């Protein structure tokens, strides 16, 4: 007796399916869930075969659908228990059901579901079913199941297929598609499916023959001209089937089979003919496009010839022309795609002598696509598609023309050049930036699509330049001058946009200087410079200021234009959409033309004074402007002049810093932003002031130097300026609400002088140390602070003895942070740990003698201020912490910890005493290091941590084998890794022999990367009780 009082499970299933589709239950999700749950139980249960049979015998489509589904579920669930005789029995039942429901004219949904059940039985490893399409076709023709032996007595094409009616042929096609698609899916299955795939591939020929038969029949059928007729559905299914079997053919194991390929090509040719049938042309176009993109081998010369005829003059041509005239839209894009696929397939062959007349016609149609009304990518999807093809051609043509190949000799150069030029003219209209009212309804996606199209177009211009030469620039120059003269800002913007993008090709070599002279030397441009408040549109202004920055070499050669240009740039800083591009261009031009701009400095400073009060003076614009101005200041001949100008700027920033401090009491966030802007500006000035020929800091120089030698900027008349910078920093760091942005800018200020030995930004070493020590544990931006500390020590590496106190101070600071984290695990901060360990690893090569030689210990802070309790020596705390970091789960600290130990293992002392110091340290720390590494390798660490942890092990074994061996042995001995066996008992993973073998193999590998990693990986897998690896 089954549940709920049902004696007969089949009856229960019937009732459940009826309830499932009962409209009264549709709004009761709980009831639906309950029904589905019970149905699933039945579908997996022992009565499932009978239930499936019974449901399929019903007249309702819902019941039959569930019947087919039940077959599939049961086959998947109990497939492992089924042997060949039973498979044959189930197959016979399924085929009989299939034939019956097809002959009864059942809905496509049910037939497809049953076709998928048939593929499930086909896929069964023990299924003997091989020529499935032929066999199913014969069964359909026979009106019931026939065996495979009997099937093969009747010819598939001449005997079986002509006996099928349209409904039967359609049902067979459903199965054919399902079988092929299943075959494609099998290919990515992780299990060994080769035998099943081979059986599937035995059906490729029948699959193609079926497609060919159907398409040929349909081509003579008048019914196929009626929209929605069964013949149209049949032809569409046949095309899907061709696509799917091409995939199976491509992935087959057997070597190339020309007869199969012949069938594939033949089907393709029949489908090409379908392009002329209005009801099927769109579907045929989509199918052929996909085949062109992925299965080019399925076309031969005859296919191409036939297609070119159709593309040049047929219903397909008329659809494409209708798209270019705006009469048809997305519904006809399949034809554009086919055209582009054909063009891409033909590639340069289109231009090979002799050029076929139909190809000339096709090229003309392709060019007309640029005339499609509307904005590209938004209203017009055709233009971006065809542009893709021209981009491909333009990119490869330069190489082809410069090679001496036979192909290049045959290329019709003039035709090609003419076509490339025509594309440029066609594109220009498409590049016009939309009027604001047109863009009103555009969302972010549309805007970014349109911008992406514009950049695609620029790629084309750059690719076409080597072929079209300066003529290409002159086209845009003429357009720019004409539109500038007429104050047609849209046209001017588009022309300048193209000229800007071509700068990469023409700026440095000066090839287009004459064209640029014609624009920038024109009366209209002079007017624009003089009256820069003119009514130029914001977009045109934005593009113009961007263009200036892209032609820095041109303006270096034509520096008389610079004052006018910079005037426009400074004026443009006031407009929000232009400020960013203007500041960038000011920086670029000021840096490249600094020498000639020194006379303009007073004007620029006045303009800067006006700019700094504007709302557009932000952290993304102001620092760039100041960096440019600083680059000009750097070119002033006398330090006194520099100091005078800089005092004016920094005086302003100190005032601003004071204002920011006052703000901090009331408007916390505003004060932060203000402080960030000020420090960002100061850091940028530091960058701009860097001399062009920075002296090289020789890290290995033996001579000892003063880290802070007296100079104009710290002991002379310029010292006041340096004091102003330090004052601004003090105001914005000490007792100020700092954030990571402020910290980063402050670090940039400090680092600005690290590459110089004397200069305004070379500060006393104590400034860096005090700055770093100012920040507590766990603050955001610790990585930047510690990286600054590393840079500081690196910049003084050649005279490390002179900054011994500062180095000690920094090391002790890090040790205190580490000690706090070791003593209070709650305070552990991975970012601080990572940054601190990274700092230690970087200082090791040059400062190890300081690290290991002093036995200073740090006091333990207590609540009552008693500091009598002492911690262990600093280096012990530091090394213990790095080992602790290796045992933690955070990947970053594991990597930095491992890197630290690799550096330490590679360390060599410069004197016997230093070598002895290092040896002593290693002697003490190798045992705990090995203990930690082995514990991690024993399945504790993540798989992705293995490579970095192994690095530490490899260097230890390679450099210190004598100490490593006993330490690893001891670590392995104490290892008590256990796994659960098949009986559920905990058993040790390794016997003592296993451990000893692992140790020996590690020693034999002597730190070789791949061998050691492989050994460690296997060890880890064993400890995790895994017998597989995802990837090598």
């Amino acid at each position, binding site marked *: 007796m089954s549940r709920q009082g049902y004696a007969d499970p089949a009856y229960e299933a019937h009732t459940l399916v009826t309830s499932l589709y009962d409209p009264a239950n549709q709004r009761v999700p709980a009831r639906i869930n309950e029904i589905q749950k019970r149905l699933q139980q039945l579908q997996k249960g022992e009565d499932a075969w009978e239930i499936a049979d019974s449901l399929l015998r019903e007249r309702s489509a819902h019941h039959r659908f569930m019947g087919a589904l039940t077959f599939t579920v049961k086959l998947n669930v109990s497939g492992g228990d089924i042997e060949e005789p039973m498979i044959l029995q189930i197959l016979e039942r399924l085929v009989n059901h299939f034939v019956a429901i097809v002959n009864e004219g059942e809905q496509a949904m049910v037939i497809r579901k049953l076709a998928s059940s048939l593929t499930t039985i086909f896929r069964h490893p023990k299924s003997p079913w091989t020529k499935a399409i032929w066999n199913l076709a014969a069964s359909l023709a026979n009106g019931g199941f026939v065996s495979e032996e009997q099937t093969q007595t009747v010819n598939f094409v001449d005997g079986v297929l002509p006996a099928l009616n349209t409904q039967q042929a359609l049902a067979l096609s459903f199965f054919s598609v399902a079988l092929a698609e299943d075959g494609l899916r099998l290919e990515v299955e*992780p299990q060994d499916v080769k035998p099943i795939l081979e059986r599937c591939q035995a059906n490729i020929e029948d699959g193609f023959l079926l497609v060919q038969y159907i398409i040929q029949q349909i081509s003579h059928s008048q019914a196929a001209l009626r929209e929605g007729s069964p013949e149209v559905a049949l032809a569409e299914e046949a095309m899907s089937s061709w696509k799917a079997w091409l995939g199976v053919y491509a992935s087959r194991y057997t070597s190339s089979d020309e007869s199969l390929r012949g069938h594939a090509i033949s089907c393709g040719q029949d489908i090409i003919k379908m392009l002329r049938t209005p009801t099927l042309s769109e579907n045929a176009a989509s199918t052929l496009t996909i085949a062109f993109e992925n299965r080019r081998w399925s076309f031969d010369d005859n296919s191409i010839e036939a297609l070119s005829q159709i593309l040049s003059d047929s219903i397909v041509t008329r659809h494409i022309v209708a798209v270019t005239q705006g009469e048809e839209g997305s519904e006809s894009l399949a034809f554009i795609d086919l055209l582009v696929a054909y063009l891409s397939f033909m590639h340069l062959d289109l231009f090979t002598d002799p050029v076929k007349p139909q190809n000339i016609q096709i090229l003309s149609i392709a060019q007309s696509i640029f005339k499609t009304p509307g904005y590209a990518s938004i209203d017009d999807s055709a233009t971006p598609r065809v542009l893709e093809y021209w981009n491909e051609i333009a990119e490869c043509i330069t190489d082809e023309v410069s090679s001496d190949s036979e192909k290049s000799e045959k290329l019709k150069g003039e035709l090609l050049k003419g076509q490339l030029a025509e594309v440029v003219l066609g594109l220009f209209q498409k590049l016009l930036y939309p009027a604001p009212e047109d863009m009103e309804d555009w969302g972010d996606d549309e805007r970014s699509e349109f911008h992406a199209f514009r950049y695609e177009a620029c790629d084309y211009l750059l690719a076409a330049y080597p072929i079209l030469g300066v003529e290409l620039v002159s086209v845009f120059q003429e357009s720019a001058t004409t539109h500038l003269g007429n104050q047609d800002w849209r046209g001017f913007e588009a022309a300048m946009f193209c000229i800007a993008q071509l700068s990469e090709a023409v700026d440095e070599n000066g090839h287009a200087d004459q064209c640029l002279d014609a624009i920038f030397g024109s009366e209209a441009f002079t007017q624009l410079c003089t009256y820069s408040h003119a009514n130029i549109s914001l977009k045109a202004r934005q593009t113009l200021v961007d263009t200036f920055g892209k032609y820095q070499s041109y303006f270096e050669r034509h520096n008389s234009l610079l004052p006018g240009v910079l005037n426009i740039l400074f004026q443009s800083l006031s407009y929000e959409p232009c400020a960013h591009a203007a500041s960038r261009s000011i920086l670029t031009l000021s840096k490249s033309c600094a020498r000639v701009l020194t006379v303009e400095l007073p004007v620029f400073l006045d303009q800067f004074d006006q700019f700094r009060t504007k709302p557009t003076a932000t952290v993304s614009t102001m620092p760039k402007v100041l960096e440019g101005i600083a680059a000009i200041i750097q070119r002033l001949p006398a330090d006194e002049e520099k100091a005078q100008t800089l005092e004016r700027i920094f005086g302003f920033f100190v005032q601003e810093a004071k204002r920011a401090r006052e703000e901090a009491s009331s408007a916390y966030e505003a004060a932060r932003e203000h402080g960030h802007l000020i420090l960002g500006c100061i850091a940028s000035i530091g960058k701009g002031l860097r001399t062009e020929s920075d002296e090289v800091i020789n890290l290995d120089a033996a001579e000892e130097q003063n880290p802070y030698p007296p100079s104009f900027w710290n002991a002379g008349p310029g010292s006041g300026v340096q004091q102003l910078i330090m004052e601004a920093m003090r105001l914005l760091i000490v007792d100020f609400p700092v954030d990571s942005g402020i910290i980063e800018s402050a670090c940039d200020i400090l680092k600005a002088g690290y590459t110089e030995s004397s200069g305004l930004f070379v500060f006393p070493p104590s400034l860096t140390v005090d700055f770093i020590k100012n920040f507590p544990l766990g603050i955001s931006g610790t990585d930047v602070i510690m990286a600054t500390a590393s840079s500081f020590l690196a910049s003084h590496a050649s005279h490390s003895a002179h900054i011994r106190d500062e180095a000690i101070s920094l090391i002790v600071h890090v040790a205190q942070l580490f000690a706090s984290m070791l003593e209070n695990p709650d305070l552990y901060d991975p970012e601080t740990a990572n940054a601190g360990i990274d700092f230690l690893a970087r200082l090791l090569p040059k400062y190890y003698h300081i690290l290991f030689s002093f036995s200073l210990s740090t006091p333990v802070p207590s609540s009552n201020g008693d500091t009598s309790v002492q911690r262990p020596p600093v280096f012990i705390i530091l090394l213990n912490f790095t080992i602790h970091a290796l045992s933690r789960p955070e990947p970053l600290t594991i990597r930095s910890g491992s890197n630290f130990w690799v550096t330490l293992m590679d360390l060599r002392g410069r004197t016997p005493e230093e070598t002895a110091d290092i040896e002593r340290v290693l002697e003490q720390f190798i045992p705990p290091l090995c203990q930690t590494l082995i514990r991690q390798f024993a399945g504790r660490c993540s798989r992705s941590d293995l490579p970095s942890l192994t690095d530490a092990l490899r260097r230890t074994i390679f450099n210190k084998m004598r100490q490593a061996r006993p330490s690893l042995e001891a670590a392995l001995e104490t290892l008590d890794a256990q796994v659960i066996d098949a009986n559920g008992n905990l058993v040790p993973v390794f016997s003592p022999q296993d451990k000893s073998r692992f140790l020996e193999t590690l020693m034999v590998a002597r730190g070789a990367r791949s061998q050691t990693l492989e050994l460690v990986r296997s060890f880890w897998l064993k400890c995790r009780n895994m017998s597989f690896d995802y990837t090598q």
Partner: protein
Amino acid sequence: MSSPSYYELYRGSSLGLALTDTLDDLINDGRIEPQLAMKILSTFDRVVTEVLAEKVRARLTFKGHLDTYRFCDEVWTFLIKDVTFKLDNQTQVTADKVKIVSCNSKRPGEA
């Protein structure tokens, strides 16, 4: 065993490593079977390849000196020196040496 259709190289990316570590943990806790992990990773291989091909619109250009190039087993390798990358937002990134390894994006039998 059939040849894999998608490259496994993205398993070595930070996303792939994080996924692999997570799957390892789930297996270790007995919450999933290794076969499911394999299936998830093959789905990851497919999806990451498709998404990178279809969804990513970011672009960059770079210039440098081509030092060495080779083509072996359908894999191109380029070693480039003194490289400057220009990103979409106009930022520039420089590198002394860059190695580009490029595999055929078409599956065997395609095109």
